[in-house]
């Protein structure tokens, strides 16, 4: 039983890591009033870049850095289109995903040695290292405290992001811009700069999510590596009600159900696996239905009031 809990916990956390990075990125983006549906594409390009750079430079940190840069760059495109040009955020986000998916696939075909495919290559990877002392604890030692560096960083990042959002002046500015940009503007907060900054920051985290897939979880590149996890992250944002701590619960639930149902099948239990299999997607659909009732539930779920609305100074709403 102890082994079972340990191994399920291990897989849950590993599967949840990239999901949580992407979700946190989207939470910060949306908190500033920008909806970025480009998560899937940004993650995919992040994963491809991370692996390509790490493979050719044989330096995993360089690969990670490149993924963060590219993630930020992808978000910058979205920010420019939606904040400066005030293009439709949904359309621009979808464009980013289409573009990213195609670009990543193209990179996968061409960025291997001598312009060949990257599939099947083995490059440097983040290994799971037990933490001193904590790693010796029963159950949580070999699971929670035997993970890779990116997961450990996430343990620190979540409380920091929460604290920043709710307890600092900058966090207040961020929330104000997402809730009521006019008021924020009057307060002297630069709405455009704020939105740019957090959209790009969100993209950096999405790039990180992709890097974890190709450098930590799969340790290699595969076409369509994200497999729709970017979309689940968008659903998780609503599931988490735009709160970094609650996002952890969502990521653990989504990562954990998969691990659990595979494990139950492997053990040969007769509980219908298809039921558990559909649970994460059932939640996703449920959450997406809630989006449709946006106006109705907005207040209750706490979406930033100005989410998806471009801000134009002195323009009546």
């Amino acid at each position, binding site marked *: 039983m102890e*082994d079972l809990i340990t*191994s399920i916990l291990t*897989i849950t956390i590993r*599967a949840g890591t990239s999901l949580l990075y992407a979700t946190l990125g989207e939470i910060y983006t949306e908190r500033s009033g920008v909806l970025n549906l480009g998560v899937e594409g940004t993650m995919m390009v992040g994963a491809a870049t991370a692996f390509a750079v790490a493979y050719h430079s044989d330096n995993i940190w360089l690969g990670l850095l490149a993924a963060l840069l590219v993630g930020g760059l992808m978000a910058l495109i979205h920010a420019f*289109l*939606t904040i400066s*040009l*005030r*293009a*439709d955020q949904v*359309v*621009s986000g*979808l*464009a980013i995903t*289409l*573009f990213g*998916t*195609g670009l990543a*696939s*193209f990179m*996968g*075909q061409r960025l291997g040695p001598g312009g060949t*495919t*990257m*599939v*099947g290559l083995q490059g440097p990877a983040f290994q799971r290292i037990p933490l001193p002392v904590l790693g010796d604890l029963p159950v949580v030692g070999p699971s929670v405290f035997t993970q890779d560096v990116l997961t450990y960083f996430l343990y620190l990042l979540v409380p920091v992001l929460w604290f920043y959002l709710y307890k600092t002046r900058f966090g207040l500015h961020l929330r104000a811009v997402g809730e009521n940009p006019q008021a924020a503007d009057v307060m002297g907060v630069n709405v455009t700069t704020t939105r740019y900054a957090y959209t790009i920051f969100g993209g950096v985290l999405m790039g990180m999510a992709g890097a974890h*897939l190709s450098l930590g*979880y*799969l*340790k*290699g590149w*595969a*076409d*369509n*590596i994200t*497999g729709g*996890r970017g979309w689940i992250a968008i659903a998780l944002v609503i599931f988490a009600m735009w709160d970094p701590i609650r996002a952890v619960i969502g990521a653990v639930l989504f990562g954990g159900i*998969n*691990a659990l149902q*595979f*494990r139950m*099948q*492997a*053990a*040969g239990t*007769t509980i*219908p*696996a*298809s039921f558990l*299999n559909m649970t994460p997607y059932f939640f996703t659909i449920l959450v997406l239905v809630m989006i449709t009732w946006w106006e109705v539930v907005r207040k209750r779920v706490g979406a930033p009031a100005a989410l998806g609305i*471009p801000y*134009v100074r002195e323009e009546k709403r």
Partner: protein
Amino acid sequence: MRKRIGILLALVVVLSLVLAACKQAAPETEVPTEAPTEAPTEEMPAEEPLKVAFIYIGQPGDLGWTYEHDRGRKMLEEELGDQVETIVVMDVPEGPDAEKAIRDVVQQGAKVVFATSFGYMDPMLTVAQEFPDVYFEHCSGYKTADNMATYFGRMYQPRYLSGLVAGSMTEANFIGYVAAHPIPEVIRGINAFTLGVRQVNPDAEVHVVWTNTWYDPVKEREAAEALLDEGADIIAQHQDTTEPQKAAQERGKLSIGYDSDMRQFVGDTVLTSPVWNWGVYYVKTVQDVLNGTWVTHQYWGGMADGVVALAELSPMVPDDVKQLVDQEEEKILSGEWDVFCGPIYDQNGELKVPEGECMSDADMLSMDWFVQGVVGTIPTQ
């Protein structure tokens, strides 16, 4: 006004990106677009190469399913040289998009079209009815027309042989099987594999985990890890990528590949792989078209035809196991015996195929039960 310009700009960006994405899926060969000529194929002048199109669900970079079809295409080009010219369309989703892709290649002058995924069946039939002078070949389906045939392979034969290897080499008597969708093709593979395992090791069990996807590297890995955590020491699979093999190797465990010889991509811990060899069929079929002897058919080739095979065994496999595999392979190749010949019992111990009898092709193609030794359920029931 500025807002509208912004939207317009975004739309332009979307369009250009979509086009850029489509371009990738566009045919590799430059072919002038023109309506297909009325001339009957058999009288085509020799200097004009026969255009043969391939519709892929993914990219050859999967190192699995599409990789093997593309290897077959290359063999076709090699064997028939100047007589053929191939067109490739990659990443074609199943459904209405497939119809468009198939019609496109026909309009580019393709005289033979190979569609390599089950979901292309209905779209292909629709297009086949519009172009009676073009030959359509659909992989793994069951619908045919005067100018549309189906082709597939008896993968269960090499799968049985790979089961012999796994059964001989498991120490835990616990073999994990990462399986895609609960359809007869996959069930047949699991059963054949298990029959092989139990032939040499009646105590071993094959535990099945369904991923409900053909292609998802992350899920395939997670399923394999769940099996390894539960105690499996060999991982077999029916998926499109090498992830289950990599997961097993990282834990120091063994595996059996599928589709392609995965040992060359992962290493010697992949003991062997049941593999496709489509080139054999592609050459034969296109030759038939060139000779004017093509007639509609439902091809289900076995090891004797060469369309399916067992990849070379890893050096980790002991000699006595190699001899056993060779011996059983000989029985299949000579046609004296086949995998689904009795006695075969199902999971509940009920006799399904009595001794001295063999299952008919129709029964094999609609298989919806597990043999004794499989641990797992078929969700559709």
